[in-house]
């Protein structure tokens, strides 16, 4: 442990104080774009992705550069902010592809931005690594797009199967915001519970600015449900639902399928009301590699790490490895094929491979371990380890 933190400190200090590399004057430059959200909503995700890329690049640069096909390159990360907007992403993509002439882009954060830049990046053969949750981001017609993080589509079913079986849940109630997103999630989640052998017996929709859920919860509880599902609600709303459900005496299970939000939910609901909740967890903090990454990240950048960051650290490293295996940084078609063929990559998150042939028609979706956690004293405690096939 001591060794690790000393090492991390040394790397952090090295990054902080490094002068432009003088030993590697003859190195060529490998430009990597980071087209992420750095302002407004989604900025914490974008920052986590950018800094993961910088951290991965700095590892190679510290060691004198990355060797590809007999040449040594210094990796330069060029960052642009898309403000989570499709139109700004397009102008940034134009600059990255045509002015900066990058062949690799880490980004975008949002679904609309990735769909907006794909006509450029796919046409020019630029490899992108997006966080965007939309199922349309990956398809056989878009062979240069990869997604190094899990989405709800991957994690929902295994988690729901596990919770339903282990808790003996038969009926589930849920509240969703009354809009397009809420209705879509309601449909997906209901189907998942049905496949798991439970019934979504009470579904309520509410307007997004609502803060009092007691009447709706009264209605749901009068149906006698075994559990309440919170997927599709903002962390703040989810926290209010948890607190108010416990306030009016709901004793069944509370389940949060989907994105990382535990800390915020506990903040709003209070540790006591959130006790025993089942949540999705992307990271296992008891894993040494995860811990080391978090420590190094926080020491390097001096702020807390977003949960998606390690996915992009691993993703960027897989990309660099693919370049080395393909022996080229110019021929992105060869790099793409090398990236596709990486299997059982040992990353920070554990063993990583590509999947998604069935769901998207192309295996460009990361297959990473994830977890079901239960809230204990306001903290996540891993109770099941999952992959796309299932949990145990």
């Amino acid at each position, binding site marked *: 442990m001591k060794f690790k933190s000393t090492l991390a400190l040394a790397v952090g200090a090295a990054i902080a104080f490094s002068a432009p590399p003088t030993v590697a004057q003859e190195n060529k430059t490998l430009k990597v774009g980071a087209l992420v959200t750095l302002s407004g909503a989604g900025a914490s995700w974008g920052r986590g992705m950018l800094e993961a890329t910088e951290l991965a690049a700095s590892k190679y640069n510290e060691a004198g550069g990355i060797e590809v096909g007999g040449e040594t390159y210094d990796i330069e990360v060029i960052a642009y902010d898309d403000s989570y907007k499709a139109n700004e992403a397009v102008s940034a993509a134009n600059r990255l592809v045509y002015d900066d002439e990058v062949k690799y882009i880490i980004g975008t954060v949002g679904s609309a931005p990735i769909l907006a830049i794909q006509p450029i990046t796919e046409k020019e053969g630029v490899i992108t690594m997006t966080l965007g949750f939309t199922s349309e981001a990956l398809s056989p017609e878009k062979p240069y797009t990869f997604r190094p993080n899990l989405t709800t589509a991957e994690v929902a079913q295994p988690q729901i199967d596990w919770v339903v079986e282990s808790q003996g849940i038969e009926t589930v109630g849920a509240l969703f915001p*009354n809009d397009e997103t809420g209705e879509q999630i309601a449909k997906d989640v209901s189907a998942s519970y049905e496949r798991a052998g439970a019934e979504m017996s009470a579904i*309520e*929709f*509410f*307007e997004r*600015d*609502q*803060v*009092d859920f*007691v*009447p*709706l919860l*009264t*209605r749901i509880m*009068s149906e006698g449900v075994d559990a309440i599902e919170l997927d599709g609600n903002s*962390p*703040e709303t989810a*926290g*209010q639902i948890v*607190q*108010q459900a*416990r*306030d*009016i*005496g709901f004793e069944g299970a509370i389940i949060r399928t989907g994105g990382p939000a535990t800390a*915020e939910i*506990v*903040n*709003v609901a*209070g540790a*006591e*009301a959130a006790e025993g909740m089942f949540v999705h967890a992307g990271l296992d903090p008891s894993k040494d590699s995860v811990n080391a990454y978090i420590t190094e990240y926080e020491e390097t950048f001096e702020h807390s790490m977003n949960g998606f960051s390690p996915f992009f650290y691993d993703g960027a490293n897989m990309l660099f490895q693919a370049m080395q295996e393909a022996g080229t940084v110019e021929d992105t078609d060869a790099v793409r094929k090398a990236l596709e063929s990486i299997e059982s990559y040992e990353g920070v998150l554990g063993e990583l491979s590509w999947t998604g042939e069935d769901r998207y028609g192309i295996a460009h979706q990361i297959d990473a371990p994830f977890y079901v956690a239960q809230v204990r004293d306001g903290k996540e405690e891993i109770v099941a380890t999952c992959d796309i096939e299932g949990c145990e």
Partner: protein
Amino acid sequence: MSFLIIQSLVNGVILGLLYLLMAIGFTLVFGIMRVVNFAHGEFYMLGAFAAYFAFAVAGLPYPVAVAGAFGGAIVLGAIIERVVFRPFRGDELSGMIASIGLALILQNLALIAFGPDPLSMPSLVSGAYNWGGIILPKSRVVVILGSMVILAIFYYFLMHTRTGRALRALVQDREIAAAYGVRVELMYPLGLALGAALAAMAGAFMAPLFGVSPFVGGTPLLKAFIVVILGGLGSIPGAVIASMLLGLIESTTSTFFGASTADIVVFALVIAVLLVRPSGLLGHKEA
């Protein structure tokens, strides 16, 4: 079924009382200053933050936190009346627009100072009273009792003190009140300060129920606005009736027909009242 009806009525009364604390301050400010104060929700938000810092961070007793929110809002409200609203006296439209600007400024200052993430306000009590199957969440009972004490004090102040009478006189007719020696220059800041303080105390009370973040003021403002439109701008008895009505309608229709239906019924009622009685249930016609 009858159990559900009683439960939803109980929920509705609780909800109505929560809305009342917010609406009284809003209607008072309108009655005295003729300003539709869109910054009212932000005083709620500041009160919630004040309670959070006093209670959750500094560890002071909860009543002290509420009193702190009250005191802070009195001072802030008086200053704001002096700086922002005084130039717009008698100019309802400009005053309203100034209040929207003030709301934006306060909310964004809170965003800069406290960040966008919801903060953790610990509950005072947890669990529920169960009376023959009718459930009363203890946290709400505490809020209701607190609100009733405050409303009782406020009622006494307004009805039985010299200053309260002066404020009421001002609501009824500014010029006559001034002619009878009501000190308008003191009463205006006091009116806004009291309105702000009621909102801030509502925020302090409801922080454990609905959370603390720079954006918590929006919903209570909307509810207060509906209550005051229904009850009549400036009418305190109207606010009492309208907030109970709103709470009961929201609770029963949500429980039996769903949340979207509740919104439809509430706004249909608002439109109907505006058509039949444009000045609200107990409002006075404009002179």
